[in-house]
């Protein structure tokens, strides 16, 4: 051993440090690849946080998952389609294998879509999966949105996520419309023609806007490449980004849960992501993909070959947009023509088109996005809510939602007025007139009916708590009296029916301050009190424990169901009675 390599005191001091280091790295709980990754990326903490995240179980919480998975299916199949689709309006002569179009001049976009459908292996299936998945994506987005609305899941702290979701649903529709317009078949070209008309209906700037977007006069060669960029690049990027934020906020806020015993605003009762929800959600992805693939394999969607190439002169009967734009098309069909007028010489105001095309969409989505803020202002509720409302326990909100949906459905049906006319043998004019009336009449009627149904359901719940469930078993007493046996609820069943709070309208304390001077905020508060009254005026309070107690005592001298508590048994024991099943009564 040379003197140079002799161990020096400083090294001796550090020797233990290295061992500690080695010890530390060798005692990591993760081994193998996971440990190797964690040493370099340090993700274990985050992964363990996510894996332990608890989610509650309910089928309606999976509606958003359907949306997520169908979006992923769209992304995957969309990437496949970009390999062959040519976003170009260059005119070519078709010489592919679809006979009824051979020798026809068409755009390269249409030719390449025909090639995907007929000449590329698996192309038609992928195209159909892409289109069906898009329809199902928007369907599930809307149904998910309805679930969140009717259960009040948008309340604090989730208002921002509601707004994100609102923007996502709008983007989903725009993205779908852009895709529908790409193949340049007769139907999609008609859609672009309609879009051109919508832009031109904008007062003053309309024609400029149309020239700007189409890069000249309609149809031009610019619109298909531009829509393509929007469809494959711009909108999907925003969609995916916003969706990531949407799902991250769900993790941050924790998932809401339906009320039940042991469930509070401070906990989440359910199962952890790993292993339960990884398996369930992962499995559900394959179910969704499988169902979409199955539908796409057996049901045609958008048979572009049958429509023929786009040409501004022809049009086909039954030209409609895909369903999610149907309500806007319906609005156009309902708007009466007399709204168009000419003023200032020969300046045309296309008010028969403008409200249904350019105003409707932003207005509708603004109302949807603003709703949580309006409701929290009206109710004065600034607390956090992690427990969902049962829709019946928020009758006014539920009724507002149904009224909005009924308005939407009227517009939606109007988009199919021609098909209803032929299939139901009705007059298209009568259908249109009826729907015009219904647009104004249906929402208030739907509001009223829904609210009444909610209140009666609450009353039924109250009755059920106080008197138990009707069993359908009739008791006949010696004195000839009949009474139906009511089975009492278990505490677990009862909890769900009584846990909600029944809010009273906000009261205006005083419009004047102590010195009799008008309060500056009184006017605003007056309005708020009015709205609050509208929200909470009609209410059915859940039974209080003392009411429940009183109801039980009332039952003491009433019927005596099996399984009732002792007091009832004692009181009923002396009576002579005979049980008969309802169906044997008249034998």
């Amino acid at each position: 051993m040379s003197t140079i390599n002799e161990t020096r005191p400083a090294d001796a001091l550090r020797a233990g440090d290295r061992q500690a280091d080695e010890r530390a790295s060798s005692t990591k709980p993760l081994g193998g690849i996971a440990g190797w990754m964690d040493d370099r990326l340090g993700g274990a903490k985050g992964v363990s946080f996510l894996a332990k995240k608890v989610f509650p179980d309910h089928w309606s919480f999976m509606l958003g998952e359907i949306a997520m998975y169908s979006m992923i299916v769209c992304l995957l199949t969309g990437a496949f389609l970009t390999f062959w689709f040519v976003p170009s309006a260059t005119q070519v002569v078709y010489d592919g294998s679809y006979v009824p179009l051979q020798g026809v001049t068409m755009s390269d976009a249409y030719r390449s879509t025909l090639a995907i459908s007929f000449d590329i292996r698996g192309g038609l299936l992928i195209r159909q999966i892409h289109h069906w998945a898009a329809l199902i994506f928007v369907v599930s987005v809307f149904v998910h949105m309805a679930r969140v609305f009717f259960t009040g899941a948008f309340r604090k702290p989730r208002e921002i996520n509601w707004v994100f979701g609102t923007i996502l649903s709008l983007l989903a529709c725009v993205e779908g419309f852009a895709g529908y317009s790409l193949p340049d078949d007769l139907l999609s070209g008609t859609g672009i023609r309609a879009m051109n008309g919508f832009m031109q209906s904008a007062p003053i700037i309309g024609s400029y806007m149309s020239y700007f977007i189409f890069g000249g006069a309609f149809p031009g060669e610019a619109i298909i490449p531009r829509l393509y960029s929007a469809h494959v690049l711009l909108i999907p990027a925003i969609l995916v980004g916003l969706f990531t934020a949407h799902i991250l906020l769900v993790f941050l806020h924790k998932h809401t849960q339906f009320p039940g015993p042991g469930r509070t605003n401070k906990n989440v009762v359910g199962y952890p992501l790993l292993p339960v929800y990884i398996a369930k959600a992962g499995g559900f992805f394959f179910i969704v993909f499988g169902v979409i693939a199955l539908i796409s394999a057996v049901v045609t969607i958008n048979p572009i070959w049958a429509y023929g190439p786009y040409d501004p002169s022809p049009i086909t009967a039954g030209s409609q947009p895909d369903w999610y734009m149907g309500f806007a098309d319906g609005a156009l069909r309902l708007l009466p023509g007399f709204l168009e007028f000419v003023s200032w010489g020969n300046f045309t105001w296309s008010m028969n088109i403008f409200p249904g095309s350019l105003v409707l969409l932003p207005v509708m989505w603004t109302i949807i996005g603003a709703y949580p803020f309006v409701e929290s202002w009206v109710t004065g509720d600034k607390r956090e809510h992690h427990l969902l409302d049962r829709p019946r326990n928020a009758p006014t909100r539920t009724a507002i939602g149904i009224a909005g949906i009924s308005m939407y459905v009227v517009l939606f049906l109007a988009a199919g007025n021609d098909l209803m006319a032929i299939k139901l043998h009705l007059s298209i004019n009568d259908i249109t007139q009826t729907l015009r009336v219904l647009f104004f009449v249906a929402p208030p009627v739907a509001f009223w009916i829904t609210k009444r149904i909610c209140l009666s359901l609450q009353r039924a719940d109250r009755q059920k708590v106080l008197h138990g469930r009707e069993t359908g078993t009739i008791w006949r007493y010696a004195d000839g009296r009949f009474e139906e046996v009511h089975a009492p609820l278990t505490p677990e069943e009862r909890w769900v029916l009584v846990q909600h709070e029944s809010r009273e309208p906000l009261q205006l304390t005083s419009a004047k301050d102590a010195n009799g001077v008008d309060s500056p905020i009184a006017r605003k508060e007056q309005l708020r009190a009015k709205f609050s009254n509208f929200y909470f005026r009609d209410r059915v309070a859940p039974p209080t424990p003392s009411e429940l107690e009183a109801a039980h005592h009332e039952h003491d001298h009433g019927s005596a169901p099996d399984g009732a508590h002792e007091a009832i048994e004692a009181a009923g024991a002396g009576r002579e009675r005979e049980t008969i099943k309802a169906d044997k009564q008249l034998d």
Partner: protein
Amino acid sequence: MNALAARRRHPAAIAVLLLLGLLVTGGAYSFLAPKDANAAATTVAADDVAKGKDLFIANCASCHGVAAQGTKSGPSLVGVGAASVDFQVGTGRMPLAGPNIQAPQNKVKFDDTQIAALAAYVASLGPGPSVPEDKYTTVIQPGTPENNKAIAEGGQIFRVNCAMCHNFAGAGGALTRGKFAPALEGTTPKHIYEAMVTGPQSMPVFNDMNLTPEAKQKVISYLKAQENETNVGGLTLGNLGPVSEGLFAWVFALGILIGCAVWLGKKAA
């Protein structure tokens, strides 16, 4: 208590009740629906025109008048031509079962010789389009490049002139006030040709000046080629466009997926 009352709370009761209701309504309708006035001509004349006149008097005169001059309930048939009679009677639209906004296609009431006789009689009243020659109603079969080109041309003519009412796939479409353009599938080439040439009901006339007989033949060949194409995409949902697709997505796709979600939600963790 009788047996019926005992089972009124049975889970199947509502389904049985609905079925019964539908059956009764359907049965009542089939009794009350307008039926054909069946007055077969008994006289057999040697002459086609005379035979046709007899048939006409027996079956058509109540609306069209004894001399086919027209009445309040039916138009004059002078000058409509044999093609019109062949189309209207040959597709069962005439004689009309009951007053209606538009004569619907129906069961054909006469055999070919009777229709020919009726057509001969109406044609004798004044000049009009005649039943087309076979060479124009022969369908051009796809196969050769020349024929394929003719079929594709027929498609272009169809999209420009016909699709706005009859739909891109000839599935039919709505017109104003309950009138409609009927579906074209299954219509014989001769009847399609006659419809173009006579313009029945709301349809405009496509005479030989604006669509030559050869062009009409191409349109017919396109329709038949489209009809004979395999439905490569699967079920067509009636070829009605995005409305039926949207309905399918909402009812079946969403239904199946929610079913799966409920099933998965019920699965134990």
